[in-house]
C-alpha cells in the first residue's frame, strides 16, 4: 500500500502536467504548478489532484501474486479474476485483459505503443480510444471535479465512475481504499433520494 500512496502524490503533479501538456504524444516542458489562482485574468497553472483509483480490497499491488506466476500472453479464459471476467463488456469481441494490462508488469497499465502508465494515470490509457471524452474530461466538461471553480480542484478518474471492465455507467458509491475515501463504480443503478412532499402533504 505504501507504493500506492507515493504514486498518488506523484500523480498529482503528473496530472497537472498532463493537463498542461498539449494532446500530442511526447513530453513537453510544462509550466510549473503554481498556487491557486484568485483572479480570472492571471493564469498560473491551477494545482489539481486526482481522486484515488478504487481498487478492490487487497488486489493491489498485483505483483504480490504475479511476480511469481507464469507470463502467458495467449488470449483465454482465466482461472482467477472472475469478478472482472464475468462482467467484461468492454468491446469483449475484440479486446481482452492484456490489451490494457501489461504482460510483464501487472502493477502498471500499457498504452498501445507498449509504454507503461501507472494506475493513477489510467485516463491516459482510456484517452487513447476515447479521445473526445478525454479532451472533454481535461477541460472539466465530462466527469466530475470538486474543489474551487477558481482554484485547486480534484478530478475524478475515469475509473471512479466507469468500471473499466464494464464501463457503461450504472451507479457510484463511496468506498475506502487504503484508508482513503474515494469513489467506485457499482453494478447497480443509484437509488434516488426521497421524493419531495406534495403540497397537500404540508400541514401546519
Amino acid at each position, binding site marked *: 500500500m505504501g507504493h500506492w500512496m507515493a504514486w498518488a502524490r506523484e500523480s498529482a503533479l503528473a496530472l497537472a502536467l498532463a493537463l498542461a501538456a498539449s494532446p500530442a504524444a511526447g513530453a513537453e516542458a510544462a509550466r510549473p504548478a503554481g498556487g491557486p489562482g484568485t483572479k*480570472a485574468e492571471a493564469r498560473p497553472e491551477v494545482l489539481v489532484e486526482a481522486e484515488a483509483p478504487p481498487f478492490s480490497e487487497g488486489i493491489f499491488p498485483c505483483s504480490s501474486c504475479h511476480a511469481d506466476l507464469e507470463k502467458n500472453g495467449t488470449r483465454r479464459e482465466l482461472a482467477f479474476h472472475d469478478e472482472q471476467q464475468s462482467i467484461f463488456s468492454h468491446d469483449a469481441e475484440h479486446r481482452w485483459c492484456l490489451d490494457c494490462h501489461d504482460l510483464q508488469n501487472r502493477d502498471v497499465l500499457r498504452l498501445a505503443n507498449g509504454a507503461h502508465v501507472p494506475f493513477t494515470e489510467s485516463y491516459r490509457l482510456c484517452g487513447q480510444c476515447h479521445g473526445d471524452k478525454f479532451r472533454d474530461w481535461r477541460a472539466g466538461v465530462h466527469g466530475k*471535479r470538486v474543489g*474551487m471553480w477558481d482554484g485547486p480542484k480534484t478530478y475524478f478518474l475515469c475509473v471512479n465512475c466507469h468500471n473499466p471492465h464494464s464501463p457503461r455507467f450504472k451507479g457510484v458509491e463511496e468506498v475506502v481504499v487504503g484508508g482513503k475515501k474515494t469513489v467506485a463504480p457499482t453494478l*447497480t*443503478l443509484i437509488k*434516488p*433520494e426521497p421524493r419531495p412532499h406534495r403540497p397537500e402533504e*404540508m400541514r401546519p
Partner: protein
Amino acid sequence: MTRKSLPLIEAGEAAPGAPERPLDPARRAFLRTAAAGSAVAALSSCGLDMEDFLRKHFKELSPAELGRVLAKVEQRNQARFGRKTTVRADGPRPGVEFGYGLDLSRCVGCRRCVYACVRENNQSREHPQIHWIRVLEMEKEHGVDLAHSEIYYEAEGVPRPGKFYFPVQCQQCRNPPCVKACPTQATWKEKDGIVVIDYDWCIGCRCCMSACPYGARHFNWATPNLPAAELNPDQHYLGNRPRPKGVVEKCTFCIQRTRQGRYPACVEVCPVGARKFGNLLDPESEIRKVMETKRVFVFKEELATHPQFYYFYAT
C-alpha cells in the same frame, strides 16, 4: 456594485464605480430622522427592536451598519439554534460572471443535489419542506415537455427506462422578472449575476413567485423547521442564513461558497458530473468550454429572461 464590506474580504480590490442607490439618500435621511423620532417613541414600548425597524435597505448600509447587522444575525442564530455561526456579506468579485451548465445527457435523477443543497443552505426540512432544486422526470419520447413531466417520481434505481431528468433551480436571469415585480427592492441582481434576496426586507407579498417562470422561488409558509444539529454555520447574509417565517428564498448559486471560489454544493455532490460551474468571462473555464463545444439551450427561452443557467447535451 462592490460592497464596502468587512476588511477581511477583497483586500486591495478597488471599488469600480459608485454603488447603486435605491433612492436619493439625503432626502431619505431627513425624512427618516423625522419619522424615526416619532416611531421610536411609539414603538419602543412594544418591545420592537428599533434599529431593526428603522434599518435602511441593504445597499445603503454603511460598513459599520452592515457590521452591526451581521453581528445581530449571528446573535439571533445563537439564540435560535444555540450555535455559533459566521455570517459574511462578501461582495461580487470584479471580472466574474457566473455561468452554470447542466448536462441533460448525464443527469440520472438521483436527487443528491436537492438534499446537498438543503443541508448546505439551511432550508426548512418539513412543514414547510423547501427544496431549491426540483428534478423533473421527463419522457424521452416527448423531450423537454412540462405537460409530461413528473416531480414526485420514485424508483429503486435511476434512470428509469425511457426517462430522462431535468433539474430546475433559479436560473439567475439577466432579465429577471422577479426583480422587476418585487415592490420593495428586496430582491436584486448582483454584478456577478446572482439574484439575491434580503430576507429582512421581503414583505412576503409573493409577487416574485407569480412572476418567476421557473418555479424557482419558495416561500416560508411557516417558521422554518431546521434542526440545530444540522445547521450549516458558514453563512452569507444574502444566502444560506436561516430565514424567518413569511419570506421568500431561492437558490443563490451557493453565494457563501462561490464568492470564496468554491463550487456550489450541488456541483460537488452530483455523482455523475452533470453540473458545471465557473466564470463565463474566463476563456479557460469549464463553463466556457461547454458553451463553445456543446449544444447549449436555455429553459423557456421565448420569455427572454436570458438565464445564466444553461442546459446542454454533452453527447
